[in-house]
């Protein structure tokens, strides 16, 4: 077997709130002890497999900020109405579930990212929510308006259910789609739609006095002219590859007020250890918040296997142990140390 190849993308990030020319001045987001919670769809769900977003943020905050933890509540195909989270019920049950998860994860900072699922499904519909399903299939304007109304309700839900620890909500526009050439479909039109959704999300952030990260613009969505991506950052024009996620993570960090620098040697073993601990922690957390067999453990067949639900909280100490490793690896990264 090959040795695992390091993806050489993260070019190191500084923590001193440096200002990039194109962006408005932004104060760095994170403080010691912050709990970041990610709420979104496929982009975030798959981020757990690569560990890039958290690893990047852990380093970007610099050595002075300590004890950052992250909980990823991303769910493939989810919408602002909570479609993917609902299991057997209507999407409103998905929102109930999200509310419960937010309460359990006690976030200080919630990063929200939606929009791809909606922009790509204009004219087809993208939610099962009975009150909105028809509008989501009725053209771009109707679809966007329903999206933004749902998004605003979601922000309200996050505010209400995250508990007193909540300090900031950040809206993140989806990154752009790519053209990879035939036989994959051309995404020019979808990118145009995505820009319209992005504009709406930006206005929504402004209206609600929230931070906004324009991943779409930062990753070239506005200058996209239908060209075939080289090199491709996505697997299929939509979903970012491991290399793509490194860029997403870097741009996200920039959008949150962190600037590029060159302090960190990404080839340090400690860097890979940090990323590995992040991925392992996310794996444990996945089994914790989205366990398999929920029908038997918690839902209408719990009289059969509910006795085994006691195992699920037993992932908590495993998560805490990995977080300790994350903090240690992070310290070594900053110290420029290697394990040996």
């Amino acid at each position, binding site marked *: *077997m*090959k040795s695992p190849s390091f993806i050489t993308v993260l070019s190191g990030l500084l923590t001193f709130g440096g200002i990039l020319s194109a962006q408005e001045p932004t104060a760095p987001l994170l403080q010691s002890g912050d709990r970041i919670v990610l709420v979104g*769809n*496929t982009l975030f*769900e*798959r981020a757990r*497999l690569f560990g890039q977003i958290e690893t990047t943020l852990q380093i970007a905050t610099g050595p002075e900020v300590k004890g950052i933890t992250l909980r990823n509540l991303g*769910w*493939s*195909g*989810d*919408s602002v109405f909570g*479609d*993917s989270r*609902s*299991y*057997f019920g209507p999407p409103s049950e998905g929102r109930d579930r999200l509310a419960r998860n937010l309460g359990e994860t006690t976030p200080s900072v919630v990063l929200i990212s939606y929009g*791809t*699922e909606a922009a*790509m*499904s204009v004219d*087809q519909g*993208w939610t*099962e929510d009975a009150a909105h399903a028809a509008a989501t299939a009725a053209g771009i304007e109707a679809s966007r308006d329903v999206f933004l109304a749902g998004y605003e309700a979601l922000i309200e839900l996050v505010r209400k259910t995250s508990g007193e620890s909540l300090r900031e909500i950040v809206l993140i526009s989806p990154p752009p789609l790519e053209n990879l050439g035939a*036989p*994959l*479909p051309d*995404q020019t039109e979808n990118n145009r739609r995505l820009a319209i959704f992005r504009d709406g999300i930006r206005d929504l952030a402004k209206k609600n006095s929230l931070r906004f990260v324009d991943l779409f613009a930062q990753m070239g969505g506005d200058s996209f002219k239908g060209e075939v991506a080289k090199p491709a950052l996505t*697997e*299929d*024009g*939509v*979903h970012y*590859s491991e290399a793509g996620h490194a860029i997403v993570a870097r741009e996200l960090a920039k959008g949150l007020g962190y600037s590029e620098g060159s302090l960190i040697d990404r080839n340090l073993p400690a860097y890979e250890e940090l990323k590995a601990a992040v991925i392992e922690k996310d*794996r444990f957390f996945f*089994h914790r918040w*989205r*366990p*398999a*067999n*929920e*029908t*038997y453990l918690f*839902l*209408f*067949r719990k*009289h*059969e*296997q509910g*006795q*085994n639900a006691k*195992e*699920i909280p*037993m*992932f908590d100490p*495993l998560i805490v142990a990995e977080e300790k490793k994350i903090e240690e690896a992070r310290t070594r990264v900053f110290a420029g140390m290697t394990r040996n």
Partner: protein
Amino acid sequence: MKLSFSNRVATILTLGAITSLSHAQNGLRDIPDTAVEAQLNAFKLIEGAKINLFASEPAVANPTHMNWDQRGRLWVVSSPLYPHIQPGQEEQDKIVILEDTNGDGVADKHTDFATNLHIPTAVLPGDGGVYVANSVEVLFLRDTDGDDVADERKVVLSGFGTEDTHHLLHTFRWGPEGMIWMNQSIYIHTHLETPYGVRRLLGGGMWHFRPETRRAEVFMKGLVNSWGHVFDEWGQSFMTDGAGGQGINYVFPRSVFLSSPGASRILPGLNPGQPKHCGVEALTGRHVPDTLRGALAAPDFRGSRINLFQLTDKGSAYTSTQIADLVSSTHGAFRPIDVKMGPDGAVYIADWYNPIIQHGEVDFRDPRRDHAHGRIWRITFDGKELVKAPDLVKASEADLIQHSNAPEGWTREAATVELRARQPEAVQAALESARAPAGVDPDLFALRKVWTSQALHRFDAAGAAALLSSSNHKARAAALRAIYYDAATNPEALALAEKAIADPHPQVRLWGVSVLAQLSSPDTVKIALGALEGIELDEFLDFALWSICREHADRWTAAAQTGNPFANTTQLLFAVRALNQAVAVPQILSALGSGELPSDAQVTGVADWISKVGSAADLNALFEFALTEGAKPAHQTTILQALANAGSLRKLKPAGDTARLSRFLQSPDLATFTSAASLAGLWKLESAREGLRAAFLNAPTDEAKGRAALEGLIALGGPPTATMLDEIAKNAQSDYLLRSLAVIGRTKMDPNEGAKLAVAVLTEAPQGKDLHGIFDAFLANKQGPVALSNALSGATLPQAIALAGVQKASSAATKPEALVAALQKAGTIKPMKMALTPAEMEAMMKQVATLGDPHAGEVIYRRAALQCVVCHAIGGAGGVIGPDMVSIGASAPVDYLIESLLEPSKKIKEGYHTTLVTLKNGDSFAGAIAREDTNELVVRDAIGKENRIPKTEIASNQISPVSLMPPGLTAQLREDEFIHLVRFLSELGKDGDFKTPSNRFIRHWQTLMPHPSTRDRIGHYGTKIFTEAVSDYSWAPVYATVAGAVPVGELPEIEGRGKNRLGVARTFIEVKNAGPVKLRITGKLADLDLFHGDTEIAMPDGAETEITLDVKEPGRQKLTFAGLKGYGIEGVTVEVLDDASRADLVELNNF
């Protein structure tokens, strides 16, 4: 003295504390011998077959799925992690490659390709790597440096649900067109972001996915555990279900089957009442015996066997006939869960190897769950050469195209997958110059070229269009299926579909409709409805048309506001009924009035539809039609029923003179009277009160009519009804039936008033039995249980009637605990716990094993008093309310069986949960949701009755933790009887006397109930009198035993000549064409008279004979027998020797 078993249990339990059984399921004491020899010795094979071990642990443990690569290596996924990862456990499930390098039929090399998976449930090599279902994701794993170990891992799709790990995405297969087909089961909710938009599948169903375009689309929905999918030679799809029990299912685009959430209509499988299956494969190629070639092999993992089915064409779909088993085993851990033809032409079987199959029912951490063993078996056939697999990797493109026409399905599929890896230009050039190999049907060859072009993503649309002119309907249907996938971008598709709609063959029409459903033309429905013309519509084509009328409703409803957008009124009626909305009502009603819709089915259709969607004026038009001079009585009955439905479900009545109803209250016809009585109440026709009162008081003579009149009186309501019922119930001189009905009626009006009357009436219940359903009336009302328990406060009841009440209340979905307590107090019944301690359970299991007699147990199972047969079928013979028991013994441990008999609510089979629907008016309905649409929900209750409930009336709708099966059904048994019963259940499905044989025994019968006229008439006319249509003969359902026999001794005694006593039974078969039909009869033939229609068939002496029915008129044939009791006749079996294409068996509900 008969000491009831329940008393004994109760006694024991008063002594000791009750321990939960959930951690003490020790039913399976004898873990089967894990040695390979033990399994080898336990196989029974179809004639001429041999079996050998291809691979086993440690190379494979608990295999869940397998597929071959183009090099002839077998890729197997296995999951010791199943059913649930433990905290701290590594994700170490694996993919192993098994290779037979020297061709001796045994894998001599195994390589772990990946060892870092989480409950993988499907594996499919291709495209230079392997696709794997890994819980929430489809992964593509690749080896980039040639050591057969994956070093690249990419997520291809994500968002699959994991609500139940035996429902995870599964059953990957390459289609002939080069797409990946994959299935998910009932509890899985999937949300994919594809480059074409979000795709969601909430519940079971099947996807197709083209890797190079990343397009994933839903093909069909439903099935409980859709664990098998195979293509026949012409590319049609057949699926099996691990829990649905309808054998082979024919599926097509947008078809919907059992368990699909929110489905308002579902299609049946082709083998109702068959065992449940995991996997399915077509037996193909030169090594397979001629008699088996083309058969579908479906592993019955519960029964440790592999069933075989033969398909024959029938209308737009197929009939499927079960033939002999390919292999069966008495080894309880043999769990065949996948079957695939191999490169050498042999049959390969993945044996999950586990004594426990259950998921929910057995604890995840039960130590008997095997996590270490797994077997791959190989079946070969004597006298048939094995096939030499071609070297596909080295073959030229031209050779690969020849191989894609091989007689072996394996070679064809692998060649297609290899062609996908080649330069498309080179393949296309080879395709253009390819010639059909000798012996290959030119249409099949042309079709395979089309498929290959699709596999390259260079669809040969012209080739597909040309196939539509084939003389073979299978080629035409297949061409349409090839066109279907990309029809939306194919400019020819509309014209081709239009041509298909007029095709003489219904299956081609069905695919024409499927193609139309993909198109955006405004005329799709108009074109599709042409399929109604000139042929007999069957259920599958009907479904496809129904579906497109709904899906494309916005394309025709505007035009239907004022006119008829379709070719004729019949088409319009079909469309509006499918849509189930008030569209084109004036046109339809006017057509009804002018006689344009004359058939009974059309009148029923109009009436049913208007009752659901029509206005008061529309209802009046319908009413007028029924009142028309010369209206057919059948039409009048239909219309009154429809008006009654509209009245009760929609609170709507005709806008006209409703008093004209009175003439129907004089009707001698029960159905007409019942509807009229109900309407008189709903329409508040005071003038009808006297007539209804008279009919009610006549209930002791005509109960059915009396009950119908009562419903009318209740609906009419008011003090007159209340006073009348109060007086009857309080009058101890009244007939007991009348008093009971009065209590029931009063309870429906006001449960508190009913309860005041109930105690006195229940106290006088004859033999302590609730003969007329007083308890049911209270349990069917939200306030009822509380009202009755209040009334019982301080009262006493005879113990027997109180017990009957406890039993009914204990199985009520509302869990009326206060009522149970009140009944126990009133009847001075000690609380009876039906749970055993672990020690008692162990002792009982020992007795089942040593003393239990399954033959005695079957007799007990069939006793009317136990009611097992009323709700449960065995192999399709029996009721449909509870799960089919066909292989319960092979799949459930003994402790599970005991526990389920004593405490039915403890473990409830998936799909059999009770839903409790409570209405705003307090009425409640408990049962299974049969179907639903936007307006109504249909709940099937514990006696199989379907209740239609308007959704607007529903206050709450929840899944109840209570089983529909009442506890205490076995309380009447002695302990020895209980032990025999458990032993019988524990043998069901295991190899031996209680595995339902695949012979086509007639299992559905009716038996004649004793009748006063038989004794005299038989003296004059002989047993032929039983074939006559005597109107007051009463026939009760009876099912054959597991072995297929009708036990004559069990049948009611019919008086014959002198002291002769007879058992009489009849059944039906459906014969396709005139000509001979062969039957085999067994039993003591000398004492048996058998009739075909009214013609007696001479019986020889002896115990077995084959006879030939001479069928002159095709269609339904009646068979009647009379067996002379008491001289050793025992069981009679009647087996149909012709297959389903010649003669279909008829189920009781269609008698």
